[in-house]
């Protein structure tokens, strides 16, 4: 039976953001889904039409300029109208602060069950089954979202971005919603995050760490370039920080930081217990080391035994290629 899934757009410079494309990927993972787009704000009509790039044939636009700031409480009213109008059973929002704020409001405004940070999704009898990390990634829960309606937000990097397959998208315009007191808050300024400063080590979804195998501070740029290609944080083993190749704030391990990212790539790190305890709760661990009997391969999920000076640049190039970074 076909389910209608509405994807709520988040706009960057009037275009659909990366998080929105991931949300489309989430919608795609629901079998037999008819996907409908939704965009809000002054740029809504053109943004809504952009859903056509991903083969989506129908979208709603709420071109209310009050919604330009992307203030979720206000967007929720229009989004709920769109979802009801489309007869949707699922709404997907982006895995972002906007998406999660919106999901809470929509759950009540649209009378739905909700889940954020979702890594897996399946349609089941009477609803949706979702899987999501909890307790800082130390455990995973599976929940049933029961009832006719569900709102989901993915965990970043957990769903594939669908390829483009252009189609004509017909856009329906929604009248402005009655916001009442929700119209009062005003955004007074917007300060962009400093470009080039990657995510902090302890919050990062992906960490690339370098060890003694990197041989010297002059080679650490290989680690940093791999990290940059992934949008990852950079870490180091104690050998590296003790040798002064990087500051102690980079150290992952028993006497340094503990991290639990989605993906931890250990490059030239042998895997002494003192390092392992700092990263062992990462969801996926990849190790690259020239010694195939190095202890790191006991805790890693995937391993490449080889010369990191060849492997890492090749990996960086491949990541940049698939991410379209040129």
């Amino acid at each position, binding site marked *: 039976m076909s389910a209608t899934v509405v994807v709520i757009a988040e706009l960057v410079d009037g275009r659909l953001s990366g998080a929105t494309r991931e949300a489309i990927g989430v919608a795609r993972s629901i079998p037999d889904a008819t996907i409908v787009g939704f965009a809000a704000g002054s740029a809504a009509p053109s943004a809504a039409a952009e859903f056509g790039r991903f083969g989506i044939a129908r979208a709603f636009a709420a071109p209310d300029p009050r919604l330009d700031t992307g203030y979720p409480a206000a967007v929720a009213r229009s989004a709920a109208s769109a979802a009801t109008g489309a007869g949707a059973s699922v709404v997907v929002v982006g895995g972002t602060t906007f998406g999660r704020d919106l999901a809470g409001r929509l759950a009540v405004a649209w009378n739905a069950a909700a889940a954020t940070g979702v890594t897996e999704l399946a349609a089941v009898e009477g609803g949706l089954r979702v899987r999501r990390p909890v307790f800082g990634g130390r455990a995973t829960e599976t929940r049933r979202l029961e009832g006719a309606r569900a709102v989901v937000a993915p965990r970043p990097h957990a769903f594939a971005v669908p390829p483009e397959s252009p189609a004509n998208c017909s856009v329906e315009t929604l009248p402005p919603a009655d916001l009442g007191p929700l119209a009062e808050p005003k955004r007074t300024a917007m300060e962009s995050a400093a470009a080039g400063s990657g995510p902090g080590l302890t919050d990062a979804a992906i960490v690339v760490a370098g060890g003694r195998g990197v041989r010297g501070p002059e080679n650490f740029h290989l680690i940093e370039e791999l990290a940059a290609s992934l949008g990852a944080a950079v870490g180091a083993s104690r050998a590296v920080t003790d040798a002064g190749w990087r500051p102690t704030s980079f150290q992952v391990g028993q*006497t340094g930081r503990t991290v639990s990212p989605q993906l931890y790539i250990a490059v030239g790190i042998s895997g002494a*217990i003192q390092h392992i*305890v700092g990263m062992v709760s990462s969801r996926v661990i990849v190790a690259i080391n020239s010694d195939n009997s190095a202890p790191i391969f006991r805790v890693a999920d995937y391993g490449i035994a080889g010369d990191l000076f060849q492997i890492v640049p090749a990996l960086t190039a491949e990541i940049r290629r698939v991410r379209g970074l040129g």
Partner: protein
Amino acid sequence: MTAEQESLRDAARKFARTEMAPHAAECDRTGRFPEEIYRKAFELGLMNLNVPAEHGGSGLGPVEQCLIVEELAYGCGGMTTSIIANCLALEPIILGGTDEQRTRFLDPFCAQYQLASFCLTEPSGGSDAGGLTTRARKDGSDYVLDGEKCFITNAPHASLYTVFATVDPALHHRGITAFVVPRATPGVAPGKDEDKMGHRASSTSTVRFDGARVPAANRLGDEGEGFALAMRTLDQTRTPIGALATGIAQAALDHAAKYALERRTFGKPIGEHQAIQIKLANMAQSVRAARLLTWYSAWTIERGGKGTLESSIAKCFASDAALRVADDAIQTFGGYGYMKAYPVEKLLRDAKLTQIYEGANEIQRTVIARELLRGYA
């Protein structure tokens, strides 16, 4: 444990793990006296535990004190020694002071962060406290103190000293008299901080009294009652030392047990090797016994018992246990245990003092034997 006791224990645990433990290694390495941590302890009500609430203290009984002291010692034994040194110094005032003295001394003392020192030990005798030589010469309505005390916790930083001096050496312990001496008294001079094996976050020094004039109104009890007051004081403060030793021992056990699960030799975690298992089993028994003996002593005192026998047993057993457990913990870590970068060698150095201070274990054993035999006489 009542819900109240659990809350107190949890509050002390949180303070120990978030405020004390992160700085323990640095203070141990440098010998720094972390005044900012002691101030926080005061602000949270973790100091002056034994002082009745009407005088501004926390007014906690022996059991609650043990719960708190064990948790603090888990964070750092040295810092705990300085925190509870106030309890030791103020106990003679609580036990032996008149109502007027208690109000006059305790109320202003507890109203703000300050430290106090209990001055009994002298170069000529620690265990032989009855033979102390510091003189208190009566002069009009004052006493003039002359002499030297040593190994006094908090002395360089204290604003108040509880001093035991003799009005007549010929009377031996029956001449000993207790006095409350403010730091500002002319003739009172704490010495330089000693460079100690352990408890390095705590400050210890001599205190010299040179013609220090103290009004008779600062005398606690009558002349000659000081020795008995000191012994009654130690009856109260011995049990928390058992708790302090237990806290150190528990920390050592935790480190060793976690390491035994992580460290692998001969293809498996060392916790699966019998030699280590036997060590851990012995350590666990020692810690459990130390804690229960300490709790039993506290419970006895809470019920109005004198507690000399029970508290001596608790202090003696727990301190010996702490030393054994810390030693075994180092052994479990092997070579790494010998390195200062790892936390276990500090625990051995901290445990050692618990066998020596607040009544050396040799004295504890004679006290235990004497009290024991009294029960059979």
